[in-house]
């Protein structure tokens, strides 16, 4: 469809979540914004192929995800450099304890295989249905479900089993994990 002002506004409205998705995928704020810019350019260049009335965010996420994957193959070696960059993208710095917990979570997320990480983010954070997430990733709905489950169970193992001892002051969670509330 033509690039109407309404469509421009809709595309712009998707930018915040596109950035969040890009940062979650790449772990690097600068690279994420380059990805978003490239996504916007390609989306507008190919706007004629967008079906009016279909899911615009899903269409944009698909473009970004495909760009990330082709980019990722080229720059695999640079990915390890991302430590700490995520925090720099935040405007308000969280408290020290929250920051530590946040860093642990981010580090655990980066340990997931890419397929699992993107599935978990799309369903668990972006709020897409399993069906939309499957369309974005170009795979079956059952595949997305199993990737999300594996991602959750791996995160759980990384964050709450191996290091349950030093994880936050949440006694309820610790009691549940340890089986004894004190």
């Amino acid at each position: 469809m033509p690039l109407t002002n309404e469509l421009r506004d809709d595309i712009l409205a998707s930018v915040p979540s596109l950035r969040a998705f890009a940062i979650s995928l790449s772990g690097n704020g600068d690279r994420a914004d380059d990805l978003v810019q490239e996504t916007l350019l390609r989306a507008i260049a190919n706007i004629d192929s967008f079906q009016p009335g279909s899911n615009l965010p899903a269409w944009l996420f698909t473009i970004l995800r495909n760009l990330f994957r082709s980019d990722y193959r080229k720059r695999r070696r640079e990915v390890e450099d991302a430590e700490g960059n995520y925090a720099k993208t935040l405007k308000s710095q969280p408290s020290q304890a929250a920051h530590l917990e946040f860093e642990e979570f981010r580090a655990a997320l980066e340990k997931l295989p890419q397929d699992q990480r993107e599935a978990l983010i799309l369903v668990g954070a972006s709020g897409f249905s399993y069906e939309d997430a499957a369309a974005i990733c170009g795979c079956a709905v059952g595949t997305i479900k199993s990737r999300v489950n594996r991602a959750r169970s791996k995160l759980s193992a990384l964050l709450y089993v191996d290091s349950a001892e030093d994880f936050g002051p949440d006694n309820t969670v610790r009691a549940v994990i340890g089986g004894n509330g004190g």
Partner: protein
Amino acid sequence: MKEVKKQGGLNAEIQSRIGHQLRAMYDDVVRQGVPDRFAELIRKLDGPEAAAAAVAGGDTDKNNGGD
């Protein structure tokens, strides 16, 4: 805690905590809104041709001339 192992399915409370952290991380970025560079980019592009030229050239400023 060495003896503590995941037994069968995931605990619902742990799942909910993971979901909460995931969304907190994501929403921190969403709340930053639309950076100016993207608002300007969308405003500048007249249509698909301008965007395609920018993709090909890799530089939006140089390829979107003729104000």
